[in-house]
């Protein structure tokens, strides 16, 4: 059985909260990250993430919530977002965003698509598929950046792995 409208709305509103938060994080990092190539990539990705938040916010209205309604995710996920935002080094910032948050979200999109009725919930499915494609491109740009500026790839892999585990241990982000 698929998800009902209320549950779909809560999931979409939660994804919106996360995308607005990610937009603000990238914006906060842009002036304080010294490496020019990183700044320029972040600047471009602010708009990518904002467009996803916008599409999700329009969808919340269609799912009988307020226009651009956001729902706070589970506390553990909110804490993860806050900790990532506080990272001071550019390499750690980028790794936590592009190697932990985005791949984690991709898994959560997949889980949502497995659960929902793709016919009844077609508009959400389209938005998620688009977000997935955009975020895959963002991750690819991050890998290219690491090739261009090798110091940005110098991150403790154990730390990244631990952060990924922390992310994946949060079973559900929807409250």
């Amino acid at each position: 059985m698929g998800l009902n409208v209320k549950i779909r709305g809560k999931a979409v509103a939660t994804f919106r909260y996360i995308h607005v938060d990610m937009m603000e994080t990238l914006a906060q990092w842009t002036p304080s990250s010294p490496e020019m190539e990183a700044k320029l990539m972040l600047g471009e990705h602010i708009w990518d993430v904002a467009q996803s938040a916008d599409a999700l916010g329009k969808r919340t209205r269609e799912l009988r919530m307020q226009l651009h309604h956001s729902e706070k995710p589970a506390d553990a996920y909110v804490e993860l977002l806050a900790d990532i935002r506080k990272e001071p080094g550019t390499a750690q910032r980028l790794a936590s965003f592009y190697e932990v948050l985005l791949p984690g979200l991709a898994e959560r999109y997949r889980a949502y698509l497995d659960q929902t009725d793709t016919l009844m919930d077609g508009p959400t499915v389209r938005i998620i598929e688009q977000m997935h494609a955009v975020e895959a491109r963002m991750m690819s740009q991050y890998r290219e950046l690491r090739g261009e500026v090798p110091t940005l790839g110098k991150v403790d892999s154990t730390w990244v792995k631990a952060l990924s585990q922390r992310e994946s241990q949060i079973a559900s982000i929807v409250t």
Partner: protein
Amino acid sequence: MQDQTLFVPGPARDPRFDVKERWIECANFPPEHPEQTVQFLHRQMNEEIDSLESSARNLSDFPDADWEIRMCLARQCADEARHSRMFRRLFEKRGGRVGQYPVLNFQYRIITRFDSLAGRLAIQNRSFEAGGLDAITAGITQARNDGDFELADLYDAQVADEISHVRFANEWIRKLSEKDPSNLVRIGLAMKLASQAFAEVMGKEGTEGVHYPADRDGRLEAGFTAEEVEITARLQAG
């Protein structure tokens, strides 16, 4: 020494950059100097980064702003990042390298000093970028006259984006001022202090003899009223 009360600390730059505080400390070649165009493109690359950083700060500093204007600011971030890449591509093609000349971060240091979004938009988009419309439009004509069509095309693409940035600022300054008339006072104060700060950075050397005719069509397209365009045109004509 600069009056530091007029500025906040600058944004982070990597070690390739030599950041100065005043225009006179930069590489200011005469127009006929062989490196002048490359130096100018390098300077513009950094100015676009400053604009990106200021727009990004507007997103992170005003989380309760209307979603519609946040979307405009997010788009501006991507546009300014793209402009910076456009300038970099061109000066590298012409033999320049990142960090070859000193840069100024006065835009960011002046704009982000203010705690009102309306004030920041008035300085960044409605003043710096609107002034840019006049300069870029004059630059398109000059580049075409010089046979530099590559540069003319870059300016042509840039000015179209800048018009959108000025337009949304004009729209939102009006909305924000209608919603809260005290924003008009904030804008007035911000403009006055920004003007003092700009004069400190540029000095007489950086502004004397630098005048561009008002881009009337561009300014109208960017949401200025006919009366505002007329006043600007008269002021700029001296």
